[in-house]
């Protein structure tokens, strides 16, 4: 029904190319998140989909129709902006019904659609208010209400939660997700926050410098990152990475880290003795326990967060983050043994950053 496809999409601002040949598909009803650091091109891509930026090369298609030459208003999309972009001189009801008013729709129909959207978003008591009288979260909901009234083929979100405080952000995340489950409209969501991406997406598109690094479900990206960038971008705290050399003996394999420390490798790990690698392991896959292959680490900082404890330790010259359940007895300055889950080790080529399978 309302699938979206990008084919060889490119974008240049003058002589500077910012998007390089991007191509992927979004299935109908899917919640796709574009995530990446500032300047990676995710907002630009979204805006090209919305018709707010020209497409320098390639095609974008909605529901099977190429939309390169079609104006925003005819693409049957709705967009929620980071700054909400509510019309300050109109009431909430007028804001939400504006698109219908532009098409000279029947006022009764407009009222019904607005009322329906207001009910879904708990905005009914605010319909006669003006945007300046509302809180940030309420304004965000009005912006979403405006999009819902459109009943479009695709919802576009451009970092909608960036202007909200942390607690509100968590609440709104769940609301947006619930909305999607209810309406089942294809959604493209842009954010720089990987936590939002992980919690909300059906599929995530990780971007950097105008290129796709990896596309996959949240858990795919978490468990099987295609390269160093994705590995360190997804997951919080970020994956620990040390560079070193693989060493093999008769019955053991490990990596000698450049900064010091003997990092164990699993039995399934390939790579001959002497290969240079980047060795990655997530903080939650490290433990504090004595064992045959444990690595001595000096504790620098202990950060208890209640259920878990985050430890910053030093192995040789490398600083390593460890997240453990419970409250291990560890004092700054003490030496603790680190254990590594052998199934959770990621090896990358140190120059290209690609995963070594």
């Amino acid at each position: 029904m309302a699938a979206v496809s990008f084919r060889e999409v490119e974008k240049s601002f003058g002589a500077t190319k910012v998007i390089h040949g991007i191509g992927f598909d979004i299935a109908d009803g899917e919640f796709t998140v574009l995530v990446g650091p500032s300047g990676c091109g995710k907002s630009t891509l979204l805006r090209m989909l919305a018709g707010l930026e020209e497409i320098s090369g390639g095609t974008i298609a909605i529901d099977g129709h190429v939309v390169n030459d079609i104006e925003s208003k005819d693409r049957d999309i709705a967009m929620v902006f980071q700054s909400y972009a509510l019309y300050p001189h109109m009431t909430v009801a007028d804001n939400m019904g504006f698109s219908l008013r532009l098409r000279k729709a029947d006022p009764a129909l407009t009222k019904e659609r607005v009322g329906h959207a207001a009910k879904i978003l708990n905005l009914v008591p605010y319909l006669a208010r003006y945007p300046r009288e509302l809180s940030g979260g309420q304004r965000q909901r009005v912006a979403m209400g405006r999009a819902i009234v459109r009943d479009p083929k695709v919802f576009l979100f451009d970092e909608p939660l960036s202007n909200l405080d942390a607690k509100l952000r968590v609440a709104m995340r769940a609301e947006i997700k619930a909305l999607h489950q209810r309406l089942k409209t294809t959604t493209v969501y842009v954010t720089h926050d990987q936590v939002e991406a992980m919690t909300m997406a059906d599929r995530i598109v990780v971007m950097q410098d105008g290129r796709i690094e990896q596309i996959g479900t949240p858990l795919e990206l978490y468990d099987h990152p295609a390269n160093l960038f994705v590995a360190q971008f997804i997951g919080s705290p970020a994956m620990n990475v040390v560079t070193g050399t693989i060493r093999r003996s008769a019955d053991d394999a490990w990596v000698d880290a450049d900064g010091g420390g003997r990092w164990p490798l699993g039995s399934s790990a390939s790579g001959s003795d002497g290969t240079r690698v980047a060795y990655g392991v997530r903080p939650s896959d490290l433990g504090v326990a004595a064992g045959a292959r444990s690595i001595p680490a000096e504790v620098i900082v202990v950060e208890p967060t209640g259920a878990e404890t985050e430890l910053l330790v030093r192995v040789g010259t490398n600083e390593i983050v460890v997240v453990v359940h419970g409250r291990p007895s560890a004092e700054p300055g003490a030496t603790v043994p680190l254990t590594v889950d052998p199934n959770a080790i990621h090896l990358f080529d140190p120059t290209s950053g690609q995963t070594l399978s």
Partner: protein
Amino acid sequence: MSRSLWRQASSEAKLLLIGIPVAIWTLLPIYHLVLFALSPRGQAVTGKLWPDHPTLDNFAVVFHQEHHYLLHFWKQLWNSVLIAVAAGAITLCIATAAAFAISRLRVRGGRTIMNLALFTYFIPAAFLAVPMYKTMGNYGLLNSQWALILAMVTIATPYAIWVLKQASDKLPLELDEAARIDGATPLQLFRLVYLPLMLPSMVAVGTYALLLAWNEYLYAFLLLSDDRSTTLGVALGSFLSADDSPWELLMATGLLYALPPAAIYYAFKRYMVSGLTAGAVKS
């Protein structure tokens, strides 16, 4: 007297020392105007500070046009009103459209046009007066009220565009984008989103153009020479050349001429102040 009370009193006295001369300086010519307007004929020249028998007779004479200098008072007053309102309205229309095109539609060459407008604003109007006079002659518009209206529009529009553009630039671009995605055509964006939000600035600009046209002397004097088609201001100026001018009537007429701009300015004060100082004080 306690120390703080003394300090308060002395600082208040210092302020009054400034305030009273300022008040006298500001109001003296205007007070004098009122003085003459309220004095009976031939009495004002006696140099009294307040007339013995203040009277409104002068105004009656003016309203009944009972002096050969005042023959066309009502017509001239009407001319002033007409020209001022027309100049204000036309300036507003042209400037609002131009500011929208430059600021929101980002029309090509918009920046250049803005600079040209600014240039026109800074060049003193008095220098343009004689060329304008000859030009209106060439266009065959001399003595037509349109000459003055269009001249005033030409002078007022640059600053109007500047003020409107500044105000328009403060509106976030996302509003336009949201409206476009909602399905607005350029005209709908202009009518339903832009104009309502620009209303305060538009009031300031319209008032500015109106007052400019009402207060104008040089251009009115050059472009309109017929007593019937000229403005009240020019008529007042022509009183001067005669020896037997009825001074009290002149001042009464002058007071009538001066009242509308003062009233309008005070009515729209809050729009004017923000509008006019915005361009000058860079934040």
